[in-house]
């Protein structure tokens, strides 16, 4: 197994763990945590391909990863603001309890 394959497998594992967390937990914040894990797994993939791929001096992989970090931070901020507002409205963050449009 090449070093690149090792990093890609770790990234795939992190992605799967994040996806499992986002799909199975009740609390809305834990879904956001799962999403952050998935984004981080994507970043690891990008940096691994930058390191082991052709032309690392063009810096494409690293730039992509840096922009992805910035966008993920913005998305986390907005997502958590939404979770806080939902909690104010429904007094719970339990996603299984929020299965109706009425409210």
């Amino acid at each position: 197994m090449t070093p690149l394959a090792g990093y890609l497998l770790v990234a795939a594992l992190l992605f799967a763990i994040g996806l499992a967390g986002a799909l199975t937990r009740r609390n809305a914040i834990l879904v956001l945590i799962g999403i952050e894990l998935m984004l981080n797994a994507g970043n690891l993939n990008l940096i691994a391909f930058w390191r082991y791929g052709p032309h690392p001096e063009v810096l494409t992989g690293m730039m992509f990863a840096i922009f992805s970090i910035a966008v993920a931070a913005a998305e986390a901020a907005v997502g958590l603001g939404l979770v806080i507002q939902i909690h104010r409205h429904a007094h719970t963050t339990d996603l299984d309890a929020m299965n109706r449009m009425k409210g």
Partner: protein
Amino acid sequence: MSFVFYILSALTVAGALAAVLLKNTVHCALALTVAFAGLALLFLDLHAQFAGFAQILVYIGAVAILVVFAILLTKGSETPKDGVFSKTWLAGLAVAAAVFAVLGWAVLQSTSRLPQDVKAPTVTVQQIGQSLVGRYVLPLEIVAVLLTAAMIGAVIIALHEKEGLQ
């Protein structure tokens, strides 16, 4: 592969598993911080120093604190009475396992055809700076607008609505 890589991956995967499996939400957030730190160290192992330090600064310094604040503001530290996993947890787990199987198979099939010993690139911060304002200036400006919009949006979304606000 190197010993350092095994230790760092074990740390990161352990942190990620703890982040999705623990009952107490604040413990999940702290385990997520460990996963972020492990990832930053993996970036440093891949000779991407700027990305590693940016990961620590943004994710551990800002996103982890945001998550923790949100948990505290929504009383997330109280465990719900029906357990922490939803009723359909098995389907979610199956989907995640299927995704991992497909990705793992794709990786193992294809990476043997790439060149093996690629020399480690030396990147200076000056090169990153010049490419940011040279080749990648348009994404830079768009990210600036996006961050401004996200900041204003997050403040408006989370604002307290007073009675009789216009």
